[in-house]
């Protein structure tokens, strides 16, 4: 088998790639479902119904999609400039920590001031967290995949320390959890009595803003140029290192918003299970969206739907909900393959 380069396909064809990747994912995972002794059709039907079959299910999917949009955007922005940020998980947790530090009564502000202040502070913290690896990369050539990945574990242990120490809720019966945020620091629910909160709206706005940045601004142009060919960008006078710093700040800030939105909109307090790997799933979300900020919204809802639907399915069909992880991971692999095939044509001998 060989690969031959080919010209860029038209947009209509490009949009088919995620569809093809998802179709391939369904075929591959149906083999696993068969191995688990269930019928693929009923399992996929149950997943789909669990994800979008009822109003409750659909709202739950959107709720779950909210942090994935933020981490997906963070990854999409960073990967566009070839800054490999694998540390969205850490930046998410730091965003959660800042939300607790400022949102549990430290600042006596009304809601319309307090929430923006917390958001900005959370973004700043996440941005600074990614700035470290970015500086190490540009100054000393340290591989950011390693530093950002390992920071995830360091930050999780740091949060664990905080939750056993300074941030521990005195009324928490000894559980490692923080106090709840005050009412002024909570994002309101979109529909009374349901879990979907205004974090979702903020996520949609973030996606639109990131799209504008990437398409319309000087910064977005610089980021794409650096990502495609850093040497040529540098020759043309684009300050590569400074662009990478700005990329790191934007990416880290977006990931931190995921933590803010989860704490302030949904959970109300900080625990060690704030994120079931949203930072890592953000990589899948960004790749499925082919790094397009608007595509991130669609792919985040899709990935969230699989997780939510698989939970419901496993209760009915008895297939473990781990199938959701397998589906998402398979979707990443098939999508990367599809992107490769959009640039190259395969020849079998």
């Amino acid at each position, binding site marked *: 088998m*060989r690969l031959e380069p080919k010209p860029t396909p038209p947009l209509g064809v490009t949009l088919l790639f995620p569809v093809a990747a998802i179709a391939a994912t369904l075929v591959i995972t149906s083999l696993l479902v068969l191995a688990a002794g269930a019928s693929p059709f009923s399992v996929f039907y149950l997943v789909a119904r669990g994800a979008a079959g009822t109003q409750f299910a659909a709202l739950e999917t959107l709720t779950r999609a909210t942090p994935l949009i933020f981490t997906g955007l963070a990854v999409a922005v960073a990967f566009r400039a070839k800054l490999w940020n694998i540390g969205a998980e850490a930046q998410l947790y730091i965003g959660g920590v800042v939300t607790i530090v400022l949102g549990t009564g430290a600042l006596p502000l009304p809601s319309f001031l307090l929430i923006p202040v917390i958001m900005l502070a959370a973004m700043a913290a996440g941005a600074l967290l990614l700035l470290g690896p970015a500086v190490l990369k540009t100054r000393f050539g340290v591989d950011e995949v390693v530093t950002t990945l390992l920071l995830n574990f360091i930050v999780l242990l740091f949060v664990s320390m905080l939750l056993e120490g300074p941030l521990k809720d005195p009324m928490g019966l000894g559980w490692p959890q923080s106090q709840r945020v005050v009412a002024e620091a909570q994002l309101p629910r979109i529909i009374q009595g349901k879990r979907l909160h205004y974090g979702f709206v903020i996520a949609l706005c973030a996606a639109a803003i990131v799209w504008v940045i990437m398409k319309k601004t*000087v910064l977005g142009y610089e980021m794409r*140029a650096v990502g*495609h060919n850093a*040497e*040529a*960008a540098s020759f043309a*006078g684009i300050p590569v290192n400074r662009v990478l710093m700005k990329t790191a700040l934007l990416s880290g800030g977006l990931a931190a918003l995921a933590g803010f939105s989860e704490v302030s909109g949904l959970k109300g307090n900080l625990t060690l299970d704030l994120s079931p790997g949203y930072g890592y799933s953000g990589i899948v979300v960004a790749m499925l969206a082919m790094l397009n900020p608007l595509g991130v919204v669609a792919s985040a809802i899709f990935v969230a739907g699989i997780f939510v639907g698989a939970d419901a399915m496993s209760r009915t069909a008895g297939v473990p909900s781990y199938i959701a992880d397998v589906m998402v991971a398979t979707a990443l692999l098939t999508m990367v393959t599809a992107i490769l095939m959009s640039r190259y044509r395969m020849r079998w001998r």
Partner: protein
Amino acid sequence: MRGSADVEEKNQNGRYDGAEDGIVLRLTGITKRFGPLVANDAISFDLKRGEVVALLGENGAGKTTLMNILFGHYVADEGSVEAFGKALPPGDPRAALDAGIGMVHQHFTLAENMTVLENIALGTQAMWRARLDRGAAARRIRKLSGDFGLAIDPGAVVAALSVGERQRVEILKALYRDARILILDEPTAVLTPAETEALFRTLKLLVAQGLSIIFISHKLHEVMAASDRVLVLRAGHLVGERRTAETSRSELAALMVGQEIAPATVAPAKAGPPLLELANVSTRAGGGGAALDEVSLTLRGGEITGLAGVSGNGQAALAALIAGTMQPLGGDIAIGSATVKEWSPRRALASGIARIPEDRHAVGTIGDMSVTENVISERYRSARFSRLGFLDWRAARGFAEEIIADYDVKCPSPEARIRLLSGGNMQKLILGRALDPEPSVILANQPTRGLDVGAVSYVHKKLLEARARGAAILLISEDLEEILALSDRILVMSKGRLSTPSARGERTVRELGELMAGHAEAGA
């Protein structure tokens, strides 16, 4: 003499039985389309035993596509390939290798961290053989290199070899696998004149042993010097076939471009004020070549200064310094009459220096971005293309269309990825981007390398126009003919130092060659 009688004679004791009339390779009606583009249109030709056939054509004429089909990298839409009387299955490089076809690519395919021997023997042994029989392999390589004048140490690590030596390794690799037909894709593009001559001697030894060679080139004098027969390709068609002994450079040039090309005529220079001055500038080593050692240089308006020299003697460092990508370690850079304090690509651009980089793919353009995005890359911050951090894409696209029209760039649309353009069109875009702001200083580093005749004369015309306008031009080139044709003043770089300048016609080619080889002039 490379007459045909010679060739016929050798055919009598041919090793391969399948070959009739000494024909070792036959292409019949090869057609290959890429979308609407017909890269090869019904091309047929034969290659005889012991013959060097040159495949001549401009960039984009379809030479490389044809060879990729022959070698099995591409599958032809129509037509067939026959080697030694047997049809080759399409799209199977293995079959081509087994049939005795070897290819030396323009860009080498060697593992840099391994030795010559390992590179050559790589893949020739069954996988389950744990150890390489180094002794036998080394003996065979030594014999081949002795027979064909390809001096190389089998134990040397490839990373330590010069470009010319690496090419020898590639040729040995093909011979080691018993290649009887050797395809060389632009083999001289990376060689010094002396290395080129050595290569041509090797080719003669190879054909004397009954090998057949296809030599891809767009350089007329090399085709004339090295081949027995010339096939000329233009826009995918085989437009002519000539015996080298019976044709001339001008006839081939006309066939290749489809029209006569007038050589650039150069009016005498009226040297203006100094626009860029380097005073005792030293740098670290750059671009795999020497460092600058206290170099002083003055570029004057209305003058082309030609910099000759064997590659690797500091030209890369000088170009990087003027382009702003390298910082001086000592000495001064003065623009106009002001000494520069900070130095960067952006400063260089702001000071009115236009840069045409040596490597247009890796440095001059961003391949996966559009033509529009590429033409604004040096000026996207100017008020013309951006306001308050937002880009004005309409203005950018307008500028791209302007350059496409003014510089006669052939491209599908301003939105096309620049990677899809041919080398000549890419260079025209780079020229347009560099020259549009009417720069006062122009750094042209190998501006015509790898370009076809038509594009070369276009680049020369544009440089002469800029000179007439009063720009100061530094032309760095390994092509001495180009330097001699264009330069008002010639400098030679050797081991990081510059010779004294000589005016047009002051030094002979021979004297320049001595300077290039590093011999200082008596009394200089």
